[in-house]
């Protein structure tokens, strides 16, 4: 599998990272190096092996579905780059 410039651009878009047009060929090349390394996994016989979901065999613990925290609006907003009137502020998303 070889990654071209267009695929690199699509991945950057999916990852929401702006990559300048002129940086795409080098990025595609890096992806190819890493994916070439990963390709070794195709040598392994994984027939009948389930993908690992949890490294230690454990069931997720259940708990009562109840509110245990809250009323900390000021703390939640404290680190926001732009907070106004009790909300996170972002550029306009609806025309």
């Amino acid at each position, binding site marked *: 599998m070889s990654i071209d410039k267009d695929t*690199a651009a699509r*991945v950057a878009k999916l990852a929401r990272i702006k990559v300048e047009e002129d940086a795409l060929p080098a990025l595609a090349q890096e992806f190819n*190096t890493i994916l070439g390394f990963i390709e070794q996994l195709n040598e392994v016989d994984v027939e009948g*092996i389930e993908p690992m979901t949890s*490294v230690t065999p*454990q069931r997720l613990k259940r708990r009562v579905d109840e509110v245990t925290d809250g009323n900390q609006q000021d703390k939640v907003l*404290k*680190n926001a780059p732009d907070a106004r009137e009790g909300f996170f502020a*972002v*550029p306009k998303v609806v025309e």
Partner: protein
Amino acid sequence: MTDLNTLGLAEARDKLRAKEITSVDLTQACLDAAEASGALNAFVHHTPDIALAQAKAADARLATGDAHDMCGLPLGIKDLFCTKGVASQAGSAILEGFKPEYESTITQNLFDAGAVMLGKLNMDEFAMGSSNETSVYGNAVSPWRRGNDDTALTPGGSSGGSAAAVAADLCLAATGTDTGGSIRQPAAFTGTVGIKPTYGRCSRWGVVAFASSLDQAGPMTKSVRDAAIMLEAMAGHDAKDSTSAELAVPNFEAMLTGDIRGKKIGIPKEYHMDGMPEDIEALWAQGREMLKAAGAEIVDISLPHTKYALPAYYVIAPAEASSNLARYDGVRYGHRANLAAGDGITEMYEKTRAEGFGHEVQRRVMVGTYVLSAGFYDAYYNRARRVRALIKRDFEQVFAAGIDAILTPATPSAAFGLGEMDNEDPVKMYLNDVFTVTVNLAGLPGISVPTGVDHQGLPLGLQLIGRPWEEGDLLNTAYALETAAGFVAKPGKWW
């Protein structure tokens, strides 16, 4: 009198209890050492006011005679741990200015035990790196040098600041985290001890996430005994981390008898790598002899899927990272890019993440995005998770056959020079974790013990891998190795 900052945790604890020293004096000695260590760039945020307040409280508690082992002992904290009101940036520009409103469970556990925080320590950005060269704060520098050569060397990574600070006696011990080797590799590079506990032994709550199924925190210390003391204080079940184990934490220090007679130590043949330096081969052979002389039985074993651990890791870790790091969007915390007229929310995300993430982090997030994308999920991500199951099975089989611990080199080389890998492809850097990454994939405990020096006088470490949840037994084997190796070398002070 010895400079107080050169003490280890156990010695300092004993002196505090015997009222030979106070925590305030001990803390001040470390603060002074940290203050004068700018050339190492290990401490990136100093917190002297917090440290001295905690030290005074610790002295008061010690005076009552009711104090935990960690009480009054000054530590450095890796920047990955959220510490309330104190910058916690994970070495990234995207968390510039972020001051958590909460405390990570591990630092809270340490503070509850009376430990003192000197400040935050340098690291690779989001713990992605093996040389501390991807940090927004710049490189951390090892206190070690190659003889009289003044080439700046890496302290390893990602916990490079932690390793440099402990090796240079800027603190008594430090916290680290390990996703693929980030505690054990820097420990090996700096002549210090680092243990990655079993996955689930320490809470991940409040530790900035990189790859959640692999991340574990652990102590980085000057001795195995210190590691036992500090791990006990860090570990334990936490309702806020659903993967933390509901198991009692034993008194690890009490398990350090040094008696390993009859223990079966496995030597995996797959860890003999082509082109491995002679120094490392020789060290490994010496380690085998030391454990044998201490009464252990040395057994040749095979872990056949070892070769596939790094490629599996470089699917799984980036996949989890791409998901975890999606939260850095310029909305809730940290950096937001300046926007041009007409930019919408998508441009805000894209510009913010391009400016805030460094090159290696961007690369891994995008690789992760790719392997999780439609059409490739099965071929890459699911296949890697299957290989991971096989890697874990390799270990289960040798443990089922009676092996108590596995001895391997910790790293494939001694510390290299900062910048020496700049022109290599990224995979070359990834090879640093070749001996450590299997342990994360299998969720096992692993410890790096300084065991010797190479022909240039640089420290080298051996790794011991233990059975799940048996950190006590692992620490005891490490203690026997440490005792036999008698590693005492220290870097000469040049900074």
